[in-house]
């Protein structure tokens, strides 16, 4: 186990109560390799950053193939509408075309940039929908209703809706995309300790909601 994984473990280690809520994806394999899940993908983008700056089609294709599924999954979790999520991802890439010449950083920064863009777009859509008092499962632009996600317990979805937008986005980045604490911290603009604290609290809330509903 490398140092980065150890640092991730040390944050999770604490009281027995904290350890009970720390598991991230439920499986031991995922908890031991939480940093390694993202690192190879991010470093793979290093080779394409220059091409992105120059506007190379090949570079965009490579970056899209490396990141689109993660971005789409995250947006799908936020909006619960696949079509809307796909549109958000496409808009993020189109925004990247305009911003790429002035982009600084390596592959990891590029991935963070894309997640930031998708997150802001998702939050923007959710807030607009909320302002118009439209149920969150309806996306006004597309006019489509979210298909029910049969695999997810409705109680969990209801509990997810009760989280703040920031908490929800962090939980989804953690459990849907499998992003590391450091990467989530870069996307949401918090330090790593704060990210772990917020995620842990949100996870506890979600679990307790499901348990309470289940027992009652």
């Amino acid at each position: 186990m490398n140092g980065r994984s150890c640092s991730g473990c040390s944050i999770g280690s604490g009281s027995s109560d904290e350890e009970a809520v720390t598991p991230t994806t439920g499986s031991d394999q995922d908890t031991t390799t939480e940093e390694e899940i993202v690192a190879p993908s991010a470093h793979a983008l290093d080779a394409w950053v220059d091409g992105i700056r120059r506007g190379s089609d090949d570079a965009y294709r490579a970056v899209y193939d490396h990141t689109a599924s993660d971005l789409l999954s995250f947006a799908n979790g936020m909006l619960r509408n696949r079509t809307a999520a796909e549109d958000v991802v496409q808009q993020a890439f189109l925004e990247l075309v305009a911003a790429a010449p002035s982009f600084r950083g390596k592959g990891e920064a590029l991935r963070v940039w894309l997640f930031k863009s998708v997150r802001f777009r998702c939050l923007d859509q959710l807030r607009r929908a909320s302002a118009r008092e439209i149920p969150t499962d309806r996306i006004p632009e597309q006019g489509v209703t979210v298909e029910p996600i049969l695999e997810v317990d409705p109680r969990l979805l209801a509990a997810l809706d009760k989280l703040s937008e920031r908490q929800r986005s962090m939980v989804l980045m953690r459990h849907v995309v499998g992003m590391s604490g450091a990467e989530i911290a870069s996307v949401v603009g918090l330090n790593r300790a704060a990210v772990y604290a917020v995620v842990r609290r949100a996870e506890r809330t979600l679990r307790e909601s499901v348990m309470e509903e289940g027992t009652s």
Partner: protein
Amino acid sequence: MSKRDPLDQLAAFRVHADDDRRARDLEAIGTELRRTPPAQTVGRRRWTVAVVMAMIFAGPAAAVASGDALPGDLLYPIKRVVEPIVQLFDRDVVVERRVEEVAGLVDRDSEEDVILERIDIARDALAESNAPLLEEELDRIVDRWLTDRSTGTPAVTDRPPATTAPRRDAPPTDRRDQEPEPAPIDAPESTTTTTTDRPATSEPPPSDTTTTTAPRDTDDRPPSDDRPRDTP
């Protein structure tokens, strides 16, 4: 036996872009790439900013530094560009510079053609100004150059001395061949005569009115006989 974590269900949000969507997205990206004009890279933009800043700050410095530049120098064009502005404050400074340029070229032992051209330009500038001292200075420089040239290498061309250097608007000719015979020693430099006093001879008549003899090097044409005379 460990209980399954309810949060594992969130993995159901995990989706992948299908081929159709991927193709559409990449097409949209390609269209955007072609529509967006190639933006300047950060490096190129930095260069642009650096050049602009250099022009702002280095411009005055270059203008000052170009004051002593001679024809052929890197800064000489800057000097010529700045001169109209300088001339607003001091008209003679430009003429002075032209004379200094001739001196500088002579000191530098530049090519004869270059020096002759600059002498012409200096004389043009002198003609437009009233700076007799500078004119004398130019004559001294030219004399020195001619002396050095005669004592050093033989003359390369048959050009006249610089004091009679051809103007740019006149073809180079050996005007010494066209000079009239010198006037008699006893002839007055300036005479005032009337037609009544003038004998009717074939001698070159002076003008029919009060005249001053023209400089020898400016009017070397003999008076024509077909000029109307006031003789009765």
